[in-house]
């Protein structure tokens, strides 16, 4: 799913010379479209023909709670990611090119490190006997370890960290495109820095925030490893539930239905994102 998001951003329009794309299209068809169709088929045929899997999912309080959790986590992660990413992106946009390249390298480097390794690193930091809690207790700031892991806090911290590059990169692009003169003009007209931010910078960077935010939200919806390791069972997300249905209950029908619902929601949001990115391009191109 996330791969499609990436590719969608890179090539929202179908260029001329479709013939050369044929191998790629066949590959995508074979490895993405066919399995997804098989998934859909399974969700309405396993164990019997009909919509009973969807009825079971939508009619059960447990699954409803998991759906709610999934959206809650994705929303929290998106909001925090935007708040953290904005100052970093701004700094990258205005700093000298050479320095910015180095910082970019560092941000990208984190994406090249194995996801599982990074998540385990957070476990070491966040757990009750972890670096953060031990440090705070040694400094006398707290008496009892803070509950930073196996809950919403843990999931949010771990996922924000992983999502940051996906927010920073589009945001830097948007911020760089903003003419710095507009801010100087605002200052000359007597706007305080805060007013300049609120009335000039923020509205102009909104397309970048929307694009990055949606991408982070959509990716968060389907995340598995980080919530599974840093979260608790009571804030289980959909992907983990799907894994459970398939691995433990061997209920492929129910698991497929849950996965398909997630896919439909994701695609709807993706369509929204395409429209937003499209409008940004139109505005930027003018």
């Amino acid at each position, binding site marked *: 799913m996330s791969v499609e998001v990436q590719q969608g951003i890179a090539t929202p329009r179908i260029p001329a010379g479709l013939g050369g794309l044929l191998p790629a299209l066949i590959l995508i068809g074979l*490895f993405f479209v066919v399995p997804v169709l098989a998934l859909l088929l399974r969700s309405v045929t396993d164990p019997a023909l009909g919509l009973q899997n969807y009825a079971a999912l939508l009619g059960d309080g*447990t699954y409803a*709670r998991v759906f709610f959790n999934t959206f809650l986590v994705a929303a929290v992660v998106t909001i925090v990611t935007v708040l953290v990413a904005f100052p970093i992106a701004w700094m990258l946009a205005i700093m000298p090119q050479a320095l910015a390249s180095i910082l970019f390298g560092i941000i990208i480097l984190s994406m090249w490190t194995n996801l599982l390794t990074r998540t385990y690193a957070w476990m070491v930091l966040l757990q*009750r006997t972890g670096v953060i809690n031990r440090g705070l207790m040694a400094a006398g700031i707290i008496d009892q370890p803070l509950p930073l892991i196996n809950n919403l806090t843990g999931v949010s911290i771990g996922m924000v960290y992983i999502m940051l590059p996906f927010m920073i990169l589009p945001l830097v692009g948007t911020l760089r495109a903003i003419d710095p003169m507009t801010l100087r003009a605002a200052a000359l007209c007597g706007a305080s820095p805060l007013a300049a931010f609120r009335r000039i910078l923020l509205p102009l960077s909104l397309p970048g925030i929307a694009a990055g935010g949606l991408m982070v939200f959509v990716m968060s919806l389907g995340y598995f490893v980080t919530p599974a390791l840093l979260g608790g069972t009571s804030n289980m997300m959909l992907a983990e*539930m799907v*894994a459970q249905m*398939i*691995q433990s*209950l061997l209920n*492929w029908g129910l698991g497929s239905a849950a996965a398909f619902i997630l896919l439909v929601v994701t695609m709807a949001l993706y369509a929204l994102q395409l429209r937003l990115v499209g409008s940004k391009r139109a505005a930027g191109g003018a």
Partner: protein
Amino acid sequence: MKLIFAGVLAGLMATTAAKADEIVFTSWGGTTQEAQTKSWAEPFAASSGIKVLQDGPTDYGKLKAMVDAKNVTWDVVDVEMDFAIKAAKDGLLEPIDFAAVPKADLDPRFSNENAVGSFYYSFVLAWNKGAVTGEPASWADMFDTKKFPGKRTFYKWSAPGVIEIALLADGVPADKLYPLDLDRAFKKLDTIKSDIVWWGGGAESQQLIASGEAAFGQLWNGRVFALEKDGADVGVSWNQNLTAADVLVVPKGAKNKDAAMKFLAAATSPTGQAKFAEASGYAPINTKAKAEMLADVVKGLPDAHVEGQINLDMNYWAEHRDEIATRWYAWQAK
């Protein structure tokens, strides 16, 4: 994105099934699979010339998918016994060829038409001595947060063990455990729910106890054995230890069935079982194995702790697996 790549890669790798003189053995990873590799796979490969490729961890969903898709890349899989009984009923397993696998000395509790024992183990109460004051003596103590404060860790997945522990702690006598009173068990578990940290795999349970992240918990005895061997400061109570078994199965349609049967014969032989027990601390399922083992190793095995030992009912679990699992995960997600 990486997950998808990993998935595609795994798919590509899965298509390279073992060749005729190879088998793929799948188990649970960590210290257990290492012991299986050293005690079974390596000597077997040396004597038979059949290469044993290691894969893992065991994943029941994957096993079913392979059989359904008629593209089985695992030849021998280490599974929990209740799963094996259920899987055999669902037609997911090959029958064991007892002409190739000598049956006479195998503990009949852990073998049937479609499975031979791998090893048997006990769930024991283990704790980090640095994190617990006093010595918890029974499962009831794991539910007494006043006497024993701190996080406690239990097995995350729906499987024989935790439900029984809750019932025992609530005062149900060992011989009255089955049929399981799920309402009562979940009510008891509710009382400590916020203090539970779940472990999903053996290595995780070791890490939680060794670091003191969880003060105490329900662990596989072999994992505690490994911690003790590593010099970790852990205590263990065998009181009301709960036995269950892992078995070795051959998925339906496995490509190297004959070689797989030969491997099963080696793994369940007295020597294979004795070596594995010495390396892992789990009990052998071959009744002749103990004769080949050192006396002090025998002392540390689950069958040296039969007093107060409770056998988890694999047949009951095989029959009610789905029903219990549905309730279990619903309760966890609350």
